[in-house]
């Protein structure tokens, strides 16, 4: 399955890109996707394993199972307000 992975703020700066499509086996979790992104992107290892994430615009846990077409966002520590 394919998951659209979006990077923001410092993560986007580290990786030099804001979006990447990743291919994952069925029933892969958020944690699996984060590992993939950390391994495949230059500077990816600087993204913490336990980063905040959102799936389809919802804050989500690392063990959430992904589905084809999901939008996964890797979120640096939030600093709104």
């Amino acid at each position, binding site marked *: 399955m394919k998951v659209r992975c*979006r990077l*923001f*703020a*410092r993560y986007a*700066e580290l990786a030099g890109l804001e979006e990447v499509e990743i291919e994952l086996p069925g029933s892969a979790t958020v944690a699996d996707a984060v590992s993939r992104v950390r391994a495949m992107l230059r500077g990816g290892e600087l993204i913490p394993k336990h980063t905040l994430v*959102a799936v389809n*615009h*919802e*804050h989500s846990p690392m063990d959430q199972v992904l589905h084809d077409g999901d939008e996964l*966002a890797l*979120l*640096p*520590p*939030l*600093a*709104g*307000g």
Partner: protein
Amino acid sequence: MASPPRLTREKIDVVELLRAASGPGLGGTSIFLGTVRRSEDDGPVMAIEYSAYSEMVESEFEKILTEARDKWPDARFAVQHRIGRIPLGETSIAIIAATLHRTEAFEACRYVIEEVKARLTVWKKEIFEDGSEDWREGRERSADSS
């Protein structure tokens, strides 16, 4: 009247937001404004650049306000977060809660700003006078801007 956008690149207009939160019978209004400031050990910051995961900001704001309306059914709210480069001294966020009585106004306003701080997908980068930049994230817990 259209409600003001929740995410804007323009200056925040508190008077316009107040109009959006007004309603008959609402005797108490609590407003919180967050202002871009230089914190003690920052050095010569001249502005803060805010960026956002915009689609998620919209949906998260909606969730937060739905929760707040659930807790304070009579309240009216107006919220706006500014993004882009904001000079020192200007407002980055405004939260307004208008209710029948003042205790609820303070509580509702406080609830929304706390949830916003914890959940809104917004980031900020300090821009220094010499042109250098610094993400302001790790320090959030101890030296938050507001």
